[in-house]
């Protein structure tokens, strides 16, 4: 059986791995030159209930990626406001590690190959088309294209393209494959009736922080400093994807985590204001490049599905990760595809 996985984020990697374990011939198609998608800018694992989830998955035999993430950990057992015993993986080591692992397992991967359309035969997908018209047939299709962007959505529902890791201008926009197969997407709605939500963290270049901050980050995994009173912005919390990080503490303090870069637990932060904080005088953003202004918009494309993760109305299309519901993190992206 030939399984085609569309989108090489965490959930796509998990799906490809699991399909391979089940004995399928697997092709993983990714539009950029890197696997992991948003996983290249995340890093937090095993915080709070996710710890149990990770242990359960390992016990159930689906723990490959959790174990790789543990292996790439920079810090274990980190505590920060509202969160206990977190592991922080090194975002710089993670992608090549997963990539080698999948290749070792003989999973075929196509990079820089954006899927743009499907060929339907009644209620089944016969094959998919790449951007250049190449037709790829398959028996089962798993869509793990995430729910983020593209540019026009980040513009309409956010504050414009912030040049995030998905790099739409270079590799072309995310496309809803389920929609191309005739199934309307479900959208996430914010409290104020607008759609989507903004990614909840950005990354600072660690070298641009003071020696003192960098040393303490590398020692403890976390660094917390109060935000000047006049700059506290509680409203920004409402826009966040990850409501578990939408605590007052995150609006009143700068919370930095060491994931290789200095992960700043807020959607965006004007550079001028950030540089007023002691030790941040020379700071610059590492991801998104325009983190002083905006961040990516998520939850604009979720497919209606049943509990076997099959898309309603299409016989051989499955979904995982953010594409399959309001799953906010890496930990959730793994098992949504393992079930299949």
């Amino acid at each position, binding site marked *: 059986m030939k399984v085609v996985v569309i989108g090489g984020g965490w959930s796509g990697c998990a799906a490809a791995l699991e399909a391979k374990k089940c004995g399928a011939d697997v092709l993983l198609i990714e539009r950029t030159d890197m696997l992991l998608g948003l996983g290249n800018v995340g890093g937090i694992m095993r915080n709070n209930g996710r710890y149990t989830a990770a242990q359960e998955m390992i016990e159930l035999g689906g723990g490959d990626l959790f174990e790789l993430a543990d292996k790439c950990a920079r810090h274990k057992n980190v505590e920060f406001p509202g969160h206990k015993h977190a592991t922080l993986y090194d975002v710089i080591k993670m992608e090549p590690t997963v990539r080698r692992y999948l290749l070792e397992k003989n999973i075929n991967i196509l990079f820089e190959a954006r899927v743009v359309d499907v060929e339907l035969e009644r209620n089944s997908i016969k094959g998919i088309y790449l951007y250049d018209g190449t*037709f790829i047939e398959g028996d089962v299709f798993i869509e793990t294209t995430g729910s983020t962007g593209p*540019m*026009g*959505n980040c513009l309409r529902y956010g504050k414009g393209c912030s040049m995030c890791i998905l790099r739409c*201008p270079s590799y072309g926009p*995310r*496309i809803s494959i389920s929609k191309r197969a005739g199934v309307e997407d479900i*959208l996430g709605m914010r409290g104020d009736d607008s759609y989507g939500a903004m990614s909840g963290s950005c990354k600072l270049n660690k070298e641009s922080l003071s020696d003192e901050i960098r040393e303490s980050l590398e020692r403890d995994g976390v660094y917390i400093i109060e935000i000047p009173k006049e700059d506290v912005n509680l409203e920004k919390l409402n826009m966040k994807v990850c409501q578990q990080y939408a605590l007052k503490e995150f609006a009143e303090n700068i919370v930095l985590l060491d994931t290789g870069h200095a992960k700043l637990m807020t959607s965006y932060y004007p550079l001028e204001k950030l540089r007023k904080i002691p030790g941040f005088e020379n700071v610059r953003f590492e991801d998104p490049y325009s983190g002083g202004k905006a961040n990516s918009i998520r939850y604009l494309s979720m497919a209606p599905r049943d509990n076997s993760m099959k898309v309603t109305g299409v016989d051989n299309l499955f979904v995982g990760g953010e594409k399959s519901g309001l799953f906010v993190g890496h930990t959730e992206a793994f098992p949504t595809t393992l079930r299949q």
Partner: protein
Amino acid sequence: MFKYIDCIDAGSPYCPCELASKGECIICSQLHGKEFCDCLNWKGTCIYQEFLWNGCKSKKIREFKKFKIEKREYFREDILKLDIKVNKELSRDLNNIGAFVFLKNEKDAEFFSTPISILNSDIETDIITVVIKREGIKSKALFECEDEILVKGPYFNGIQGQKYLNELKNNSCLILSRGIASAPAVLAAKKLKINKNEVYVFLDRGRSRQNFSKPYFLSLGCIVEDVSFLNTDGELKYEYKKQIEQLIKKWNFKTVLSAGSDDFHEKVINFIYGIDKYINFATVNNSTMCCGEGICGSCIIKGRNNVKIRACKQQYNPKEVFLRGI
């Protein structure tokens, strides 16, 4: 079949255009009455972003400018060649596959403006060469231009299926050409040659001893065969069908450029599809055009499932339009 949708102006200095400001953009769903992204063909820029950053307005529209006619030459009493001295920017822009301009005599009203393909654009001397056949009122009016002429451009959609010509490198291409439509085929051949392709041209001589474009093809290094494609019933002659079939077997062409009337495209495409259904086609765009900006609707043709195609701006896969019974 792969749905090949493209707007020739997308991502260019002329994008977003008036279609975008009226919610009719060919590519962008957000500028086509929808609220979410469903981009039909990514060209490296977001049209919606360009539109918003341009103050929710379309970009400048092309305008007529007056240029000097350097040389007039009759190939036949009803076929006129003009060399027009334009500016650097225009000559560079027009040195591309599918390039055309609108021409008009200064004394005539706006609706006399006529789309005319570029046969050659010399970017050293900034001289563009066009060939005009006297047919109807608009082309007749152009024959009256003596020293000066109004030129509006650049436009790029003079050839459909450009993608299939552009992707040929170190390869080979067959051009089947008949009548005035061989002018844009010359410019296409120039580009194909630059990309190190062998170009084989079957050139219909029509009523003349040879087609006016033959010397141009030869000087580019193409292999040219003089033919007379059609029999008295207007069908492709058996002898050429045989020859084409043999050539296809020998050269393994990936793309065939049909440079004739729509009727001719239909005959060529259906015949060659019958030999090898994987060959791609490019066709000279013969649609009646008036504005060239996607607005007036005079160029609209019907594609698969009767979808409307604004042929002045939109690229389509010629198979979708000319292949019978699919």
